[in-house]
C-alpha cells in the first residue's frame, strides 16, 4: 500500500472520534445556538405578554434559519477607518474559542468530545476565556468610540469576574479533588450528593460570575444597547456579527456545562444512588413521548394545514426519539447505551435549566452601572469567594479529622454567609456615604 495513504488511514483510525466530534460541533452548535435564541425570544415574549416570532414556520420555528440566511446574505461592511486584519480576525477568535472549549465538555459518560484530559475543566475555562480577546480586538479594530468603550468595559469585567468565578470553581474542585471532568462527576456520585448542596455559596458565585463572563444582562455592559449602541459589536454587521452572536450563545452553553458538571452533578440523574427511584431512568423517554402527545393535541388546533402537518411531524419525531431512548430497555444487546443516552438527556436538561435562569434574569432585571458592577465584583464577590475557598478547605479538614461531613459543611457555610451579610452591609454603608460625599461637589460644579 502507498505509505502516504496508509499513514492517512492510520491517522483517521486513531483520530476519527475527535474529527467527527469536531465536525459535529462546528455543524450543530450554530444550529443549537440559533434555537437557543428562538427559545429565548419565545420565553421573553411569554413573559412580556406577547407572542414573539410567529411568521416563519409554525410558531416561528424556522425563524433561526431565516435569521441565519438573512445574516449570511447581508452586505459585509468594514468601516474605512477600521483595522481590516484585526476586524476580520476578532469575531473568528471569539467563535473559535467558544467552539474549541466545547471540545473538552462531556455531555454524558460516553459523549465526551476530546479525550478525558486530566485538566479538562481548566481547559474549558481557559480556552473559553480566550473569546474575550476577540471582543477586545474587535472593539479596538472598529475604531469607534462606542466599540472601544465596550471593549474596555468587557476587559475590566472579564478580569474582575473571571477571578471570582475561578475561585468559586476552586471550591468545587477542592471537593472533587480532580480537574478531570469525568472525575468530577464521579466524585459527586461517590459523595452521593451534588456539589451545589455542599458548596452553595460557590455555586451562587459561579452563577453570577458566569453571567458576567458571558456578557448577559444584568451584566451586559460591553454591549449595553441603551448606552453604547452595541458596544464592541457596533460596527459589525452581517455574518461577522453573527459569529460574535454565535460565540456568545456557545459560551452560554459552555458555562452552563461547567456549572452542570461541577455543581449540578453532570450527567447523573437526580438521586443516582437511591434505588427505588430507578424509575427515573425511564423519564427521558416518557417526557419526550409526552411532548409528542402534546404536539398531536395541538395539531388539531392549528389554523393552517401546513401547521397541522408540521405539528404531526414534530410529534412523530418526538416518538422516534422516545423510541430510541426506550429501545435499549427491550433489546438486550443495546443495553450498554442506556447510561450514555440518559446521561446526555439529564446533562442537557440541566444545562437548559441553567440557561433558562440566565434568560429569566435578563428579562427581569435592569442593567448594572459600570462602577456598581466593579464594586459587586471586587468588594463582594471576590472576598466572598476567597473566604468560601477557605471555608470549604476547613470543612474538608474537619471531615478528615472525623467530624461529620454535613456538620462541617453547614458550619462553614454559615460562617461564609455571615461574612457575606457583613460584607454587603459594609459595602452598602460605604457606597451610601461615598455617593453623598462625591455627589455634593459634583452637582454644584456646573
Amino acid at each position, binding site marked *: 500500500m502507498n505509505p502516504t495513504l496508509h*499513514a492517512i488511514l492510520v*491517522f483517521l483510525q486513531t483520530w476519527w472520534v475527535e474529527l467527527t466530534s469536531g465536525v459535529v460541533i462546528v455543524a450543530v452548535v450554530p444550529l443549537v445556538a440559533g434555537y437557543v435564541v428562538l427559545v429565548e425570544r419565545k420565553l421573553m415574549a411569554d413573559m412580556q405578554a406577547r407572542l414573539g416570532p410567529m411568521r416563519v414556520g409554525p410558531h416561528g420555528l424556522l425563524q433561526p434559519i431565516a435569521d441565519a440566511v438573512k445574516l449570511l446574505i447581508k452586505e459585509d461592511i468594514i468601516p474605512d477607518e477600521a*483595522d481590516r*486584519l*484585526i476586524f476580520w*480576525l476578532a469575531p473568528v477568535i471569539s467563535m473559535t474559542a467558544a467552539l474549541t472549549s466545547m471540545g473538552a465538555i462531556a455531555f454524558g459518560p460516553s459523549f465526551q468530545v476530546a479525550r478525558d*484530559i*486530566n*485538566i479538562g475543566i*481548566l*481547559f474549558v*475555562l*481557559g*480556552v473559553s*476565556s*480566550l473569546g*474575550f*480577546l476577540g471582543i*477586545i*480586538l474587535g472593539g*479596538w*479594530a472598529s475604531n469607534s468610540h462606542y466599540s*472601544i468603550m465596550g*471593549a*474596555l468595559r468587557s*476587559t*475590566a469585567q*472579564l*478580569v474582575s469576574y*473571571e477571578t471570582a468565578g475561578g475561585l468559586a470553581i476552586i471550591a468545587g474542585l477542592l471537593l472533587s479533588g480532580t*480537574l478531570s471532568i469525568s472525575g468530577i462527576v464521579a466524585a459527586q456520585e461517590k459523595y452521593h450528593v451534588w456539589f451545589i448542596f455542599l458548596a452553595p455559596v460557590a455555586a451562587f458565585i459561579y452563577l453570577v460570575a458566569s453571567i458576567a463572563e458571558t456578557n448577559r444582562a444584568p451584566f451586559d455592559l460591553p454591549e449595553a444597547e441603551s448606552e453604547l449602541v452595541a458596544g464592541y459589536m457596533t460596527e459589525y454587521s452581517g455574518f461577522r456579527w453573527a459569529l460574535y452572536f454565535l460565540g456568545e450563545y456557545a459560551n452560554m452553553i459552555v458555562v452552563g456545562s461547567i456549572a452542570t458538571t461541577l455543581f449540578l452533578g453532570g450527567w447523573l440523574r437526580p438521586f443516582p444512588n437511591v434505588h427505588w427511584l430507578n424509575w427515573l431512568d425511564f423519564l427521558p423517554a416518557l417526557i419526550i413521548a409526552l411532548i409528542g402527545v402534546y404536539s398531536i393535541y395541538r395539531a388539531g388546533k392549528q389554523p393552517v394545514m401546513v401547521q397541522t402537518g408540521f405539528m404531526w411531524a414534530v410529534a412523530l419525531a418526538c416518538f422516534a426519539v422516545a423510541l430510541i431512548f426506550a429501545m435499549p430497555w427491550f433489546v438486550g444487546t443495546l443495553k450498554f447505551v442506556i447510561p450514555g443516552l440518559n446521561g446526555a438527556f439529564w446533562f442537557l436538561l440541566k444545562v437548559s435549566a441553567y440557561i433558562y435562569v440566565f434568560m429569566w434574569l435578563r428579562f427581569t432585571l435592569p442593567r448594572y452601572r459600570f462602577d456598581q458592577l466593579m464594586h459587586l465584583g471586587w468588594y463582594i464577590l471576590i472576598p466572598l469567594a476567597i473566604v468560601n475557598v477557605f471555608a470549604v478547605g476547613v470543612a474538608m479538614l474537619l471531615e478528615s479529622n472525623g467530624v461529620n461531613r454535613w456538620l462541617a459543611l453547614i458550619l462553614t457555610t454559615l460562617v461564609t454567609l455571615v461574612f457575606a451579610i457583613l460584607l454587603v452591609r459594609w459595602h452598602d454603608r460605604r457606597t451610601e456615604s461615598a455617593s453623598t460625599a462625591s455627589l455634593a461637589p459634583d452637582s454644584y460644579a456646573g
Partner: protein
Amino acid sequence: MLDSILFYFFGGVAVIGAALMVTRRNAIHSAVFLITTLLATAGIFLQLGAEFLFIAQIILYVGGIMVLFIFVIMLVRLDVALHHIRFRMKSLVVTIVIAVLGAEAGAIIYYARKLPGQGLFIQNMAPASNLTPNSEKLAQSLFTNYLLPFEIASVLLLVAMVGAVVMAKNKKRTEDS
C-alpha cells in the same frame, strides 16, 4: 509522524509569529502575533504531554497577561506615546542583539550536531501518552521541594499587587484634591 508534523507546525507558527511581532509597527498587531506565538508554544506543551503547563500558558499568558497587555495598549495610546520616544542608536543596538543571538543559536546547533543523542532533535523521547497525569506531580513538587521559592514568589507578587493598589489610590487622591 503526526507528532513531528504538529511539532514543526507549532514551532514554525511560533517562530513566524515572533518575527512578525517584532517587526509590526502597530502595537496591537504585535500583541496579536505575540498571542499567536504563545498559543503555538502552548500547543508544543500539549504535544509533550504537559497538559497543566499548556493550560497554564493559555490561562495566564494568553488569557490573562495578553488581555491586560492589550488593555494597556488601548488605554495608553501607544501610537501617540511613540511619537514622544525617539529611539536613538536603535539600529546599532538591534545589530548587536541580533549578532549575539545569532551567535548563540549557531553555537547551539553546532554543538548539538557534535554530541549525538543530546542535541536539539532527540528522536527517542518518551511518548506523551505514557506519562502519568502531571498536575498532581507538579503540585507535589511545588509544595514540597520548592515550597520556599514558591512562597517567596507569592509574597513578591502580593507585594507588587499591594504596591500597585497603593500607587493607584495615591494618584486618585492627588487628582481629587
